[in-house]
C-alpha cells in the first residue's frame, strides 16, 4: 500500500528547502462515514435496486485545514466524536479523506490508543517484531533494540508472556517503548498516557520533550489539559469535525476550558 504519490527529491528543490516546509499540511480535509448496516434482506434488496437509497452519513471531518512545522509538538483537543481520531487515521494513511488533501513530509509512527494493533495470542517480543516490521524496519534492527525496549517498558520477563495476559498499563508501556526506541520523524500519541501510572507517565513526558528537542515532530492528543499545556507549542481545538480554534497552547486551552467549564 504505497501512498498516493511519493516524490523523493534531493535536499533542495523549489523556493523552500524540503526541511523548511511544513511537515504536515492539511487542506480542507473532509471525511464522511456511511452509518448503519444492511439490517434486513428487504432493505438490502431495495438499496441494491436503487429504489430506496439510505443516506445516513456522518461528517467526521468537515473542511479541516492546518499546518504543522517540523519540530513542533502539536496538541489536539476536543470532546469525544469531535474528529480527532479520524484526523489522525487520515494522517497515518489508515484511511483516505473523502475530500480535500493532506501532504505529509516524513514517516509517521502512530500510537493510536493503548496496545497499538498488538495481537493477543503473541508474546510481547513477537508483537514488537510485528509492529516494527509494519513500520518498515528490518528484523535485525528490531532485535538490536529489543533489550532497550524491554528496559524502557520495564516489563522484564513478561516480554515472553502472551499479550492477552498484559494489563492495559503494560500494553501502553510496551507500545510507548517501541515508539521511543524508534523515534520517528512524526510521532502521534493518541491518549496513550491515559492508563499508565504517574512514574511511567513522567518518564514518557520527558521522552517526548527530548524527541522534540532533537527536532522531531509530535502530535499529542489527551483529555488531560495539564499534559497538553506542559508539552504542546500549539493546539488545535476540534468540534463536530470542524476546527474551532488553532493557536498558541495557552490561548486555545483557556478558550477550550471556559467553553467546557
Amino acid at each position, binding site marked *: 500500500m504505497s501512498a498516493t504519490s511519493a516524490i523523493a*527529491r*534531493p535536499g533542495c528543490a523549489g523556493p523552500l528547502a524540503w526541511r523548511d516546509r511544513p511537515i504536515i499540511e492539511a487542506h480542507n480535509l473532509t471525511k464522511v462515514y456511511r452509518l448503519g448496516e444492511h439490517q434486513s434482506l428487504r432493505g438490502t434488496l431495495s438499496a441494491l435496486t436503487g429504489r430506496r437509497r439510505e443516506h445516513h452519513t456522518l461528517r467526521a471531518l468537515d473542511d479541516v485545514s492546518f499546518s504543522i512545522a517540523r519540530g513542533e509538538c502539536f496538541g489536539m483537543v476536543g470532546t469525544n466524536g469531535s474528529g480527532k481520531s479520524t484526523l489522525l487515521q487520515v494522517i497515518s494513511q489508515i484511511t483516505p479523506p473523502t475530500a480535500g488533501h493532506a501532504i505529509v513530509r516524513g514517516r509517521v509512527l502512530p500510537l493510536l490508543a493503548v496496545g497499538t494493533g498488538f495481537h493477543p*495470542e503473541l508474546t510481547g517480543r513477537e508483537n514488537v517484531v510485528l509492529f516494527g516490521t509494519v513500520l518498515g524496519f528490518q528484523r535485525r534492527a528490531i532485535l538490536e533494540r529489543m533489550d532497550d525496549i524491554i528496559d524502557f517498558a*520495564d516489563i522484564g520477563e513478561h516480554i515472553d508472556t502472551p499479550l492477552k495476559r498484559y494489563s492495559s498499563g503494560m500494553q501502553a508501556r510496551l507500545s510507548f517503548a517501541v515508539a521511543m526506541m524508534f523515534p520517528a520523524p512524526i510521532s502521534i500519541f493518541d491518549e496513550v498516557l491515559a492508563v499508565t501510572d504517574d512514574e511511567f507517565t*513522567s518518564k514518557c513526558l520527558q521522552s517526548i520533550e527530548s524527541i522534540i528537542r532533537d527536532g522531531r515532530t509530535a502530535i499529542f492528543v489527551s483529555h488531560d489539559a495539564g499534559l497538553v499545556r506542559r508539552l504542546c507549542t500549539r493546539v488545535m481545538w476540534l468540534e463536530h469535525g470542524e476546527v474551532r480554534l488553532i493557536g498558541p497552547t495557552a490561548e486555545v486551552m483557556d478558550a477550550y476550558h471556559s467553553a467546557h467549564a
Partner: protein
Amino acid sequence: MAMPAVDGDVRSGPDIDVLWQDVGLELRLEPVKTRIHLHDVAAMLPVIRVLAVRDFKAKFKQSLLGPVWIFLQPLALLAAFLVGFHAVATINTSGLPYVVFVLVALGAWTYFQASLSMGAVSVVTNAQLMQRTACPRLAFPIASLIANLPSLAVPLVAGVTAAAVTGHLSPRVLLLPLGLLWLMAVTAGVVMMTSALNVRYRDLLAVLPLILQVGVFFSPIGYQVSDLPGLARTLIGLNPLAGVMETWRWMVLPIPPPSVGLIATSLAVTIAFVLAGWFIFTRSEPTMADVV
C-alpha cells in the same frame, strides 16, 4: 524497580534517521479509488512473512496437539474416503492403489480448506492492526496462503512418497511446481475475494462452512472426472480445484492426461477468480478500516 528517567533514554542520533529514510519524502493523501498496485506487493514481503509466522503460531496456541493437527486432518479425510467411497463402491483408479490415488489429490483440498478458513476472516481478524497502523491490508490474505503451506506439503509429500514406494511415480513429477502454482492462484483469488467481501457482508461466515462441506464432494479427490456422467463431467470443471487435482494426479502418477475441456474450463475459472479477487480487494481496500 524505579528507574530514574533520563533524557538520554530516547534513541537518537544518525542511525535512527538513516533507519527511517524519509529525507525528501512527500506523501499526498487524497480521495482515491485504489491504493494498491501490483508492484507494491514486493514491498509487503517482510510484513507478509511476519504475519504468516504469526498466523501459523497463533493457529496452534492453546492447542493440546498443536501442529500434529496438520497430520491428523488429512489422515482423517483419507480414512473417510477409504470408508465412504472405496469400501462401498468400486472406483476406477486406473489400476492404482486407492490410498496413493487419494493422497496425491488430497493436499490440494486440505490446503485450500485451511487457507480459506483462515484467509476469509483475515482482514476482519486484523481489524485492530488495520485501524491503528498503516499495515498493508493485502498482506493479511496473502499471509494465510503462506501460513497454511504445511497443510499442502504434508499430504503431498506423503502422496508422492507413496507413489514412489509402490513404484507408480511418473517422471512428470518434475512439472509439479506448475501444479502448485495453479493451486495457489485459485486459493489466492478466492481468499482475496472472500476476505474483502467479509469486511462488509458477514453473511460469508454462514456460507463458508457450507462451501467447504459441499466442496469436498464436488472435487475429484476420491474419484476421477472421467468416471462422471456427461453433464457432471462438464460442470465440474467450473470448480477450478477439479482441474488442479486431475493435473496433479497426471503429473505424479502414470495415468492418461485429463481432458482438454476440463483443463481449459478450470484454467479460465482460475483466471476469472484471480482477476475478480484482485479487483474486489483493491477496490474495497481504502475504506476497509472504516467499514469493518
